C-alpha cells in the first residue's frame, strides 16, 4: 500500500442529460491503485470514459462521487493533452519556461536541456503554430517532463500523427521515462501503443464502464522498441478479439 502513488476511486460518474440525450452513467465502481514508478495504460472502446477517468485524476473534473488520493502531499502533476495546448502567442521556449516557477534558479538551463533532449533546440524561438503537429507534440512532451512531475497524465497524446512521427515520439517517451522514472497514467485506444508503453495495462469496458482487465506487461525496454515483439505480445494478450 505504501508504494502506491495514486488511488482513484470513482463510485459513480454521470453525464447530465443534454437536450434529447438522457442522463448517462459513464463510470461505476472503478477503483484504481497506481504504484509508484509504474506506467499504467488505460484502454477501452472510444467514448467509454477513459478520458473522463483521467480528468478526474487530474482534478479537472470534480463532478463525480468518489475520491482521489495521492501518497504525497501536494503532488506535482503534468498533463499531456490530446491536442498540444501550447500558448500560440509565446515561443516554444517561453511555453516551457512558463510551467516552471519564475524564480526557479536554473529554469533557463532546464528548458534548454529538455529542448535538446526532444530535438527542438533549433525551434526554441519559433511560435508553435509555425511548427508541424509532430513538433508541437514534442514541445508539449518537453513541457510535461520539464517540471519533473510526481505523476504524469497523458490523454491519447499521439493521436492524429503519421506512423513515423508517432513512433519516434513513443520511443522518445520510453527513453525519457527510463532516464527519469515517473508514475504515468496513459490513456489510449491503440492496443499496440498500449503494449509498447505499459508496465501495467488496464482495460475499461461495459456500460457503465468498469475495469474488465488488469494485466502486467513484462517486456524489457529493448523489447518495447522491437515492433515484432510488441505485436506478438499484443496477439497473445488480446487473442480473443
Amino acid at each position: 500500500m505504501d508504494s502506491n502513488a495514486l488511488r482513484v476511486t470513482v463510485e459513480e460518474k454521470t453525464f447530465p442529460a443534454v437536450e434529447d440525450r438522457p442522463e448517462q452513467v459513464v463510470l461505476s465502481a472503478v477503483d484504481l491503485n497506481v504504484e509508484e514508478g509504474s506506467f499504467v495504460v488505460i484502454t477501452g472502446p472510444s467514448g467509454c470514459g477513459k478520458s473522463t477517468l483521467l480528468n478526474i485524476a487530474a482534478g479537472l473534473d470534480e463532478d463525480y462521487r468518489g475520491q482521489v488520493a495521492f501518497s504525497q502531499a501536494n503532488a506535482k502533476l503534468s498533463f499531456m493533452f490530446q491536442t498540444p495546448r501550447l500558448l500560440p502567442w509565446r515561443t516554444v521556449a517561453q511555453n516551457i519556461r512558463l510551467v516552471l516557477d519564475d524564480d526557479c534558479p536554473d529554469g533557463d538551463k532546464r528548458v534548454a536541456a529538455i529542448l535538446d533532449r526532444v530535438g527542438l533546440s533549433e525551434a526554441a524561438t519559433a511560435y508553435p503554430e509555425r511548427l508541424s503537429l509532430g513538433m508541437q507534440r514534442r514541445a508539449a512532451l518537453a513541457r510535461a517532463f520539464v517540471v519533473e512531475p510526481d505523476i504524469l497524465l497523458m490523454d491519447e497524446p499521439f493521436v492524429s500523427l503519421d506512423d513515423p512521427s508517432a513512433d519516434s515520439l513513443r520511443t522518445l517517451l520510453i527513453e525519457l521515462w527510463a532516464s527519469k522514472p515517473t508514475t504515468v497514467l496513459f490513456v489510449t485506444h491503440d492496443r499496440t501503443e498500449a503494449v509498447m508503453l505499459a508496465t501495467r495495462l488496464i482495460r475499461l469496458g461495459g456500460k457503465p464502464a468498469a475495469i474488465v482487465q488488469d494485466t502486467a506487461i513484462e517486456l524489457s525496454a529493448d523489447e518495447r522498441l522491437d515492433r515484432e515483439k510488441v505485436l506478438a505480445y499484443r496477439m497473445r494478450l488480446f487473442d480473443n478479439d
Partner: protein
Amino acid sequence: MALENNTIRTGRVGRGITGKVLVGRLGWTVISFLTLLVLWAVVAAIMQSRLFPGPLEVGDKLLSEAASGELFYHVGLTLGRVAAAFIAAMAIGCAIGIALGRAKGADLFFDTWLIFFLNLPALVTIILCYVWFGLTETAAILAVAINKIPNVAVTVREGARSLSRDLNEMSEIYRFGFWKTLRHVTLPQLAPFFAAAARGGLALVWKIVLVVELLGRPNGVGEQLHIGFQLFDVSMILAYAIAFIVVVQVIELCVLQPLEARANRWRR
C-alpha cells in the same frame, strides 16, 4: 499522356503582372490624394464663393493658425481630452466586459442596462452631464467616456465569452496562479478584441469630443469650429478639420498599427 495547354497554371512571379512593379502602394496613395486636391481646386474655382474656399486658401489659413500657435493650442487640448476619455472608457469598458463575459448571472442582469446605454444618444449624455456637473472639464470627459464604455464592454464581452477552456485547464494543471494566467493566457486571447474596441473607440471618441467642446468648452478644436460656424469662416472650419484628420492618421499609423502588428506577430 500529353498535358493540354488549357490545364497549365503559371505562377505570378516573373510574369510582370503583380502591379507592385509599376506603382507601389505609397504611389497609389499619393496619386489618389493629388486627384482629390485637384478636384477640390477645380470645383472651388468654378464656384467662386467665399463659402467654398479652395485648397490654397485653406492651406493659408492652416499656416497662419499654426504660426500664431492657435492651432497647436486647440489641437493639443482636444487631443488631451480624447486621450483622457479614451483611456477611461477602455479601462472601465474592458473591466465590465470581462466581468460580464465570465459571470453568466451578471450578464443576464446587466444586459438590459447595457442596451439602454448603447442606445442613449450621445447628445443626451452630454447635455445631462453639463446640467448635472456644470460646464467643467470633468463633465466633458465623463460625457465622452459614458458614450464609449458600452461599446467597449460589448466587444470585450464577446472575447471573454470565447476564452479557451483547453488553455484554462492547462494553466490549472501547471499551477500558473492568477497573475500568470491573466498575463500569459487570458489577456493575449482578448488582445484582438481590445484592438477592435480601441480602433472603433478612437474614431467615435474624437468625434464626440468635438461636440462636447462645441457645447460647453472655451477652447479646443470643437470650440474653434463653433467660432468658424458663427463667422461663416469656412476656411477655418476646413483648416481645423484637416489638421485633425492628419493627427488621427498619424496616431493610427505610428501607434495603433505597430501595436497591432506586435500583438499579431505569432500568427501564421
